[in-house]
């Protein structure tokens, strides 16, 4: 079949392209230029495009660069900044997958007559009708969380060639083929934020920060922060210790009131998280109220057994055992209770 493979310039997508070529498919590589600003990691630099192009040349496939930087700015970067203005903590990788890679790029792949769009994600698609989205075989590298918003319509048009492989095997395969990306470090953090400027530097040029008072559960002032917009629910760093000498955690952030509420390790635990329905997506069919599931609230977070419940306009995820509070804006992926490798749906914490 004809496959368009999204090549970031990293080892996973390089090997994804190589495997497809080895399987005899008609493969074309494309690298997305998503970000015009300074950046030193991820999918946006000239060096990464060069790496992807060189790998494509080594594999003997055509390579193109797609400039989707306007769309990326509109659908990923701007909402990322706006969320921080409201004191929310978004996951830009998920938004990029949702609106760029598995929307704009997938549409483009269709228009160009490709049968499938391939990426280097560590995840698997199995089954027939319906298709299931599963964790990558390498649990340490599993990326099903950042793909958890995909549905049947997307899954039937994509392929994840390295999903069955251990990362070490991916690197070994790249090394065997002499691909220049074989030893390239994994990308870290948010691709459009450089490691030098950091999140604070990046946001500082795009929004205003406000100082805020820090109070404990009974409203007593216990400190201040310089930028309330950079404080995340569940955060421990910078919050010091309570009068009992125990660590303090952020329990709530109220940007308009310029107030951060902190509490003990016990006080930051919650028994549920609310997912407004407009943010909820299902891989196949919805979980009914009362259904058992397993929730994961960050890219490499520990799965937590839960039961789902319905409320007006929202899905409630009730944890069996209380969990560290989920920051508003964070994505929650739900996995099948009976088949815990399989994603059933996702939503964004209120």
């Amino acid at each position, binding site marked *: 079949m004809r496959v368009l493979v999204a090549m970031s310039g990293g080892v996973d997508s390089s090997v994804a392209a190589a495997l497809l070529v080895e399987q005899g498919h*008609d493969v*074309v590589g*494309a*690298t997305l*230029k998503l970000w015009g600003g300074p950046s030193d990691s991820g999918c946006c630099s*000239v060096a990464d*495009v*060069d790496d992807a*192009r060189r790998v494509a040349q080594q594999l*003997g*496939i*055509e390579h*193109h*660069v*797609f*400039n989707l*930087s306007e769309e990326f700015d509109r659908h990923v970067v701007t909402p990322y900044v706006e969320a921080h203005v409201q004191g929310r903590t978004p996951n830009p990788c998920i938004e990029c997958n949702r609106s760029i890679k598995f929307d704009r790029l997938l*549409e*483009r792949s*269709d*228009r*160009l*007559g490709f049968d499938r769009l391939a990426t280097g994600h560590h995840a698997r698609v199995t089954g027939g009708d319906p298709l299931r989205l599963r964790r990558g075989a390498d649990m340490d590298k599993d990326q099903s969380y950042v793909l958890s918003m995909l549905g049947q319509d997307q899954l039937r048009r994509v392929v994840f060639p390295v999903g069955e492989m251990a990362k070490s095997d991916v690197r070994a395969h790249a090394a065997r083929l002499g691909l220049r990306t074989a030893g390239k470090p994994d990308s870290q953090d948010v691709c459009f934020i450089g490691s030098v400027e950091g999140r604070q530097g990046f946001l500082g040029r795009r929004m205003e920060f406000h100082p805020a008072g820090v109070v404990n559960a009974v409203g007593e002032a216990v400190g201040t922060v310089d930028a309330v917009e950079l404080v995340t629910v569940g955060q421990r760093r910078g919050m010091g210790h309570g009068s009992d000498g125990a660590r303090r955690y952020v329990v709530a952030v109220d940007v308009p009131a310029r107030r951060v509420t902190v509490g003990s390790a016990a006080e930051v635990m919650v028994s549920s998280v609310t997912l407004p329905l407009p943010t909820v997506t299902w891989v196949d069919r919805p979980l009914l109220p009362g259904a058992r599931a397993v929730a994961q609230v960050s890219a490499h977070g520990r799965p937590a057994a839960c039961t789902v419940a319905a409320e007006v306009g929202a899905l409630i995820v009730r944890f069996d055992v209380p969990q560290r509070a989920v920051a508003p804006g964070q994505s929650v992926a739900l996995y099948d209770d009976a088949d815990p490798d399989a994603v059933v749906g996702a939503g964004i914490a209120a």
Partner: protein
Amino acid sequence: MSEPPSTYLDHGATTPLRPEVAHAMAEAGSEPLGNPTGSHRPAQRARRLLEEARDEVAAQLGRDPGEIIFTSGGTESANLAVLGTLDAVGRDGGSPSVLSSAVEHPAVRESCRAAARSSSVTWREVPVDRKGVVDLEALAGLLDEATTLVAVMLANNETGVVQPLDRVVALARAVCPTARVFTDAVQAAPFIDLATGTGAADLVSLSAHKLGGPVGVGVLAVRAPGGIAPRQFGGGQERERRSGTQDVIGAVGLASALRLAAAGRDESVRRVRALRDRLAEGLLDRVDGALRTVSTGAVTLPGHLHLCLEGIEREELLLALSGRGVCASGGSSCASGALESSYVLAAMGVPDELARGAVRFTLGHDTTGADIDRTLAVVPEVVASLRRQR
């Protein structure tokens, strides 16, 4: 991957090396060549070939051989023209100012920007009209007696629009007799007689690979009292204006390409224009929503056809055309190879939505009627398939 037959309509990016040029270069390299600054026989042979090439280039440009500086290409020539001129004036204690058309090639535009960033240089861009022709009234308004340099290309690389250089020069001379006029003739060189076309300008740049010569060699012609300040320093070659051992074989190739282009120019212009017109009419007729970017009233180079295809993303179009063996261009790209929105089209007032579907076909000396037939067959099919909903 199986290679489809190829129709190359991207001569504006680079042209295939002409066999006669390759032959002339091979001939030049068939005997030992020394460094042209040396004194032994191989050095003298190199020097002779270099100066013969210089004489040929000078003759084609209608200039004195002493005005001809060999460079590494169009970009270096533009940098030397802009920065070297501004430096020379700044060196004399003046406070330099430069005017450039809003559609100059990045080599010129970014040189101006760099100059304006790093010193007391002032830089203003002269707007163009909807056809992409420099606005002479605006130019008149921006010129003053202190203007140092006016940069207006002979023809635009994206659209092929030919600029009224003689009128630009006349206007500049009238307002500021000491202002120098630089014209980037890189894109125009295959099709416009350079002696008459650029004769009025003080500085002219050329690049060999846009006219059937090799990549990596170019020319800056300088006719200016006080000359220009060098941008690179060393052995003082090219009369202290451009240090570095000259690329003798490249210079031979450039001279050969210029001579060939001049000898066949009239016939080539007629032939290429007829092919281009057939392509234009065919595509406008067969492709729904295809619009000429440059209205028919403007003078364009005979090999350029610039269209905007409504509702089409040029990145998709170029990929699909490449798959069918038709090589065209989106007009402007950055270091990563990604297409960028075109400041040339923006300066002409082309709306963004339309510019997204911009495509440039550039024909050249080796383009055949069969190339046009294939393009006319492939483009409408590709556009239709891109428009079809999944």
